[in-house]
């Protein structure tokens, strides 16, 4: 369940923001992620950001994946 896709916050006005995914843009709500900033990637579900993507953790995961799959 729960289609949520990573979207980039382009601008914020109050509790609304403009989110961008590869040029597709839509106005979304940041009511659930008041800490989101311009430049953050958020998980976008039905027009609401439900979480801010942790860029560091993403890097860590990719690093781990590469190590795992090299070592075998």
């Amino acid at each position: 369940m729960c289609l949520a896709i990573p979207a980039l916050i382009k601008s914020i006005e109050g509790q609304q923001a403009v989110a961008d995914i590869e040029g597709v843009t839509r106005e979304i709500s940041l009511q659930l992620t008041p800490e989101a900033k311009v430049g953050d990637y958020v998980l976008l579900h039905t027009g609401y950001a439900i979480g801010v993507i942790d860029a560091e953790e993403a890097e860590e995961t990719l690093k781990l994946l590469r190590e795992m799959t090299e070592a075998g």
Partner: protein
Amino acid sequence: MKYVNEYRDPELGKKLLERIRRNSRKHIRLMEFCGGHTVAIFKHGLRQLLPSNIEMLSGPGCPVCVTASMDLDRAIAMAKLPDVIITSFGDMVRVPGSRSSLQKAKAEGADVRIVYSAQDALKMAKENPDKAIIFIGIGFETTAPTIAASILQAEQEEIKNYFVLSLHKTCPPIMKAILDLGEVKLDGIICPGHVSAVIGSRPYQFLADDYQIACAVSGFEPVDILLAVDSLVEQIESGQPKVEITYRRGVKEGGNPAALKLMDAVFEVGSADWRGIGVVPESGLQIRKRYEGFDAAKRFDIKVSTAKEPKGCICGAVLRGVSTPLECKLFRRLCTPENPIGPCMVSSEGSCATYYQYGEGSGR
């Protein structure tokens, strides 16, 4: 797409599969709880690619499939009221209740509109002040906070014609209920990634502690799912079940506190009727008294008769992981996506629709 394409890398996927094949010895049963995971697994052909000693079962994590017939009948009855606009996510519109569907009601003259977001429904409420806009609230803890937010926004902006029919349900209680039924023996569970973005990983701890079931909180791309299966295999082979977050970019242990707070402000926990399973205590979300002005169930008190499930339909057993669609006598013969009999065939992420769409067991 950033944070998506990297996790579709076929090279990483192939290497993870090799790793899983190497490390997995025991015959194990894993359940992917969430409908979104079911679809992703089929779409990328992961069942074919995983070694045969890993058995994958699909669980009841499809909020559309588990919406009780009576609840749907109530929504359809509301659609037929004068000066009402029903707004719904696309998923619900073709699901058959006991007699009809929202789509059929629309064909008969009801004003049923599909929206992408509760905010779109709020906009319709503002643009149609002389109508009552009823939003059909389905979904688990991923969606419930967004609906809660829409109710708070309606209150703030003094929108008086917006109502929510809350059919929201929660995940950890249904996981416990399924296990307590004792019908399935599971070694591991792939936990829903976006529900967990909201609720975190702690609510699943009881699965590891009390049921000795390995848990991995997974994302939805093929590499994410394989990473989760890899974690489960490791936990099971080492005999040390725990709850591991493999979707680390999306889920924190404590979840999203702001979302949880909003959800708690608007909703209270109550029992819920799960189609094919029955009433499960503490698994549903009802709108609190403070916000009863937005509660469609209170404002439009509609009585509907008890629904009977269609004869021969085994959606219940499929949802509980006891049977696969292939064991259903109606599957593919009488029950098809064009003519669905049960909810598992209508919902785009229902097991039956997925099996049908992606050709599992079609004997090619």
